[in-house]
């Protein structure tokens, strides 16, 4: 075997040679002082290179970095967002064209316009109907509330306070009786 090439020496020092290469190389090194010296010199150089001292880092370096980046990680850049929106729109348009099955672009646009017009027209009609219905319901509720207040006012004007207290007590007693009766019925129903 001839003398080692430089790459072979470094590969040898880093255990980066193929196992089948090793017997020949070891045999050669046993016979060749020149290659042994070459390996020894480069081994020492590699050791020195791999133990170079660390450079001093300022104590406040991390703090300085953090001071520069106090805001959250920025989201996508504006140009990229615009690009994605544009691409999505193109994709949607392509999908419409594919689904249209060979219709011309003008026909698709005309169809789209027609559909939008019908949708808008129907929405307006439904909105008008809903408004009418709500207005009527509001008038009925208003009338009922007014009537109730007038009735109460009339009752309090015509009757003495004693009679009112009596009427309220009777009404309350009737409500409690009704509640208890319903409760009893329900309890019996559960029992059976």
């Amino acid at each position, binding site marked *: 075997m001839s003398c080692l*090439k*430089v790459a072979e020496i*470094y590969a040898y020092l880093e255990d980066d040679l193929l196992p089948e290469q090793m017997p020949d190389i070891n045999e050669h090194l046993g016979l060749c002082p020149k290659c042994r010296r070459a390996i020894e*010199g480069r081994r020492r150089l590699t050791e*020195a290179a791999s*133990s*170079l001292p660390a*450079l001093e880092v300022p104590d406040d370096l*991390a703090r300085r970095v953090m001071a520069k*980046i106090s805001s959250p990680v920025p989201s996508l850049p504006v140009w990229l967002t615009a690009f994605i929106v544009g691409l999505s729109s193109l994709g949607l348009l392509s999908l419409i064209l594919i689904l249209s099955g060979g219709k011309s672009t003008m026909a698709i646009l005309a169809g789209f316009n027609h559909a939008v017009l019908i949708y808008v027209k129907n929405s307006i009609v439904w909105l008008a109907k809903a408004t009418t219905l709500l207005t009527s319901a509001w008038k009925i509720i208003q009338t009922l509330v007014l009537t109730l207040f007038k009735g109460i006012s009339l009752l309090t004007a015509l009757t003495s306070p004693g009679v009112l207290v009596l009427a309220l007590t009777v009404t309350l007693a009737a409500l409690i009786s009704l509640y208890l009766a319903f409760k009893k019925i329900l309890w019996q129903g559960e029992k059976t």
Partner: protein
Amino acid sequence: MSSMNEEQDKEAIRRTLRGETKAFEILVRKYQQSIMNYIGRMVRDREMAIDFTQDVFVRAYSSLRSFDPTHKFTTWLFRIASNLVIDHWRKKKIQALSISEPADEDRGPALDIPDNGPSVARKFELAELRRRIEKTLEQLPVSQRELFIWRHVNGLSYEEMAEIKNLPLGTVKNRVYQAKETIRRLLEESS
């Protein structure tokens, strides 16, 4: 162990992206020394190295959303640092030719081993040898210096370096060997 380390980095990234800015500080503290060791030896100016190291982390933070979690965070961080240093060389137009790859390195060094007596490495004590290596680093072409530092100072694997520089594995190995041979030659010349 290494995989657990990577998982910790990825968790810190996830937390940062969720808005926990403080989680990023963990990554800065963890890797500031490695980045400083690399940049400091590349630019050979302490103040500039400090500024560049900060810039690396600020750039990493700004583009954290583009980080691909299938790769190592350190690989990504060193790529940012490398781009920053190369931009600096380009702007300064220093060693412009050295940034590109040497034309014949892919074929591998076919050098014969010079046999000129006791090796220079054996002539010096280890501390003196380190000091001389530091001094000769600035004479290395940028493309060799960078890989030499990553390999011997940062302890990156050849595979990681190939990924960072997007180069074939063989090219990376040859470039590191070339760097060491250049240093050895420069030490021989200066002794």
